[in-house]
């Protein structure tokens, strides 16, 4: 997806170098390609001696003893894990400079790159970051800027529509049951409690109200944002509760307070309740694509590179993906054994068509991500304010 946006050509890279020093991110006129003013951070040229430990900020389930212990045995690098709950928390933590690596989602990565908080990746030092990485996860806008690669892909997934099959007896084909005021499940809906959820409304509008002209749910001008907020306010009337905490979401479904709403595959599994089912409706959905990024202030770059390489190997990358419930970045994993193949099948790891409909979390910025230059798009701050108005 978003092919127009991502392939940044060599010319763009050169002009980016010339732009370096300008105060604001600048869009290249007419080309439709995005160029950002990124601080010049050097990348690691060659591997040295491992430092003995590495500090990682990760989503829950990404760094587990099952594979981290083997890594420590092989390299002598002790892994210190810090689990973060939101992308915003990750950005804040990375800016302390106390961490070497982060498993950044697309809505955190752009901010980190443009803020100069992360360094470009030297792919030569990561042999496992090769052709096996699925095409849909290479060279995306959020990890490849101005021709430089900043992220080593881990995995991706869609935000699914979860429903209680005891109440919602037929598999929903549309998100309309969580958006429309006349939903048969009004008062029993749950929604994600974060400004980024505005993009979910935009995805729905993109399908049902094409006249609004939304081409990318993360590039909304004032009018489009207002339309999304109106939809969210309408939804507020049928929402039982919003969730930001995974445990709260699970108890909300299992306790019967909600019967349908947005969810992650891992939460559906953790609920350990056969009634809970998930689906990707026709409108598509938002999703996430995560990548390891190395801090520009890392004091253990060698251990960090070793970790990125280690976790990009088919077995380890697959173990992370299976643990979290997402599609692995390394396609070679899918051919390892039957269990791996079944996992890839279930999560559409190799199905690029499926992910065409999935809009990975991206930071909304004033420069329109869909290439429009005649309007100013709304920034994440605008979204945060808008989100407060949704909940009144």
């Amino acid at each position, binding site marked *: 997806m978003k092919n127009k946006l991502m392939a940044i050509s060599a010319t763009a890279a050169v002009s980016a170098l010339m732009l370096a020093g300008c105060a604001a*991110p600048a869009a290249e006129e007419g080309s439709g390609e995005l160029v950002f003013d990124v601080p010049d951070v050097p990348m690691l040229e060659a591997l040295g001696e491992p430092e003995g430990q590495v500090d990682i900020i990760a989503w829950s389930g990404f760094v587990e003893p099952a594979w981290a212990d083997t890594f420590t045995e092989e390299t002598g690098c002790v892994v210190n894990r810090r689990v973060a709950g*939101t992308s*915003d*928390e990750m*950005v*804040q933590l990375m*800016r302390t400079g106390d961490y070497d690596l982060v498993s950044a989602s697309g809505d955190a990565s*752009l*901010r980190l790159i*443009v*803020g100069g908080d992360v360094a470009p990746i030297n792919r030569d030092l990561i042999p496992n970051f090769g052709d096996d990485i699925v095409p849909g996860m290479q060279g995306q806008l959020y990890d490849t800027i101005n021709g430089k690669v900043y992220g080593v892909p881990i995995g991706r997934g869609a935000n699914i529509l979860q429903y209680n099959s005891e109440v919602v007896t037929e598999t929903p084909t549309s998100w309309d049951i969580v958006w429309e005021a006349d939903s048969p499940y009004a008062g029993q809906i749950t929604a994600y*409690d*974060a*400004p980024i959820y505005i993009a979910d409304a935009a995805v729905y509008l993109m399908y049902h109200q094409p006249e609004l002209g939304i081409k990318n749910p993360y590039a909304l001008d004032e009018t489009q944002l207002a339309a999304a907020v109106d939809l969210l306010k309408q939804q*507020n009337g049928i*929402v*039982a*509760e*919003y969730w*930001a*905490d995974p*445990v*709260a979401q699970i*108890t*909300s479904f299992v*306790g*019967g*307070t909600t019967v349908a709403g947005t969810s992650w595959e891992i939460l559906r599994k953790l609920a350990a309740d056969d009634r809970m089912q998930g689906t990707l409706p026709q409108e598509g959905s938002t999703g996430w694509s995560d990548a390891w990024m190395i801090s520009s202030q890392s004091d253990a770059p060698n251990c960090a590179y070793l970790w990125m390489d280690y976790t990009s190997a088919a077995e380890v990358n697959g173990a992370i993906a299976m643990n979290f419930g997402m599609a692995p970045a390394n396609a070679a994993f899918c051919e390892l054994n039957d269990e791996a193949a079944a996992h890839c099948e279930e999560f559409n790891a190799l199905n690029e068509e499926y992910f065409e409909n999935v809009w990975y979390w991206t*930071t909304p*910025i*004033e*420069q329109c991500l869909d290439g429009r230059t005649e309007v100013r798009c709304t*920034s*994440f*701050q605008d979204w*945060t*304010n808008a*989100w*407060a*108005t949704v*909940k*009144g």
Partner: protein
Amino acid sequence: MTVTASPSAPAAAKSKPLSTLLYRYRWVRLVGLLSLPLTWLIGLYIVSLALLLVTAFWFIDPFTSKVIPGFTLDNFVLVFSEPAYVTTALRTLGIALAVTLLSAAFAIPLGIFMAKLASPWLRAVLAVAITLPLWAGYLVKILAMRITFTEEGFFNWVMAPFGITGPGFSLFTVVLTLTYLWFPYMALPVYTAIRQIPVNLFDASADLGARGATTIRTVVLPLLWPALLAGSVFTFSLSLGDYIVARFVGGANAQMIGSIIASNINLNPPVAAAFSVIPIAFVVIYLVVTRRTGALERM
């Protein structure tokens, strides 16, 4: 601790030079006594608070969410001009006041019973019962309320035979949960105050022909007023700053001041800082009003 050395005993003075020094110079005593708490109060508490508030006048880079020092009043204008923010501030104020009133309504009869009517044994049991929730973690208590009031939860299960369904997750549940959390801070000062009322005042009141309710209204309440206000400072300010309760048992429409600060703190720290001025203002106004009644001396 420091003034034990006697100036009339030179031998003792020689053997305890520190004590002598402290005795001779008053300012050394003061510095020794206050340097640690003042470092804490000014260095850590006030300065960090001031740093936060200064951010309210700064700018934000809309792309990277990094703060840029400068001077603007836009953040305050936004906070006061956005209807959703104003509604949220008023809602939070209402919640805090409701929690305070509810706590007081529970604390007064309970305090009278414990202090004047209950046997010593029952009094001890009740005192333990009031303070026991303080032993459990804050989040544990909130999750306990969440499980109680969920759709298929304890409340609905118990009440089902009577055809009653619970409030679910709503503003009412938020008030109830906050009351549950902060009740001990109201109950203890009120109970202590009632214990200090001499029993013979009750007798005198009865002798003069007052019934129970009249005694409470004309004798107990006036003596209780400072304790109630002292307790209310806790219930009010603690409720004002909370947002976890709203998140876990608030349902769809219980956004509080803290919720907005929390969602802005990473993406837009200046707006979060500007908004944090509102609860500070509420509490300061409340404290000033309370101070005029003399209640703070009783805390």
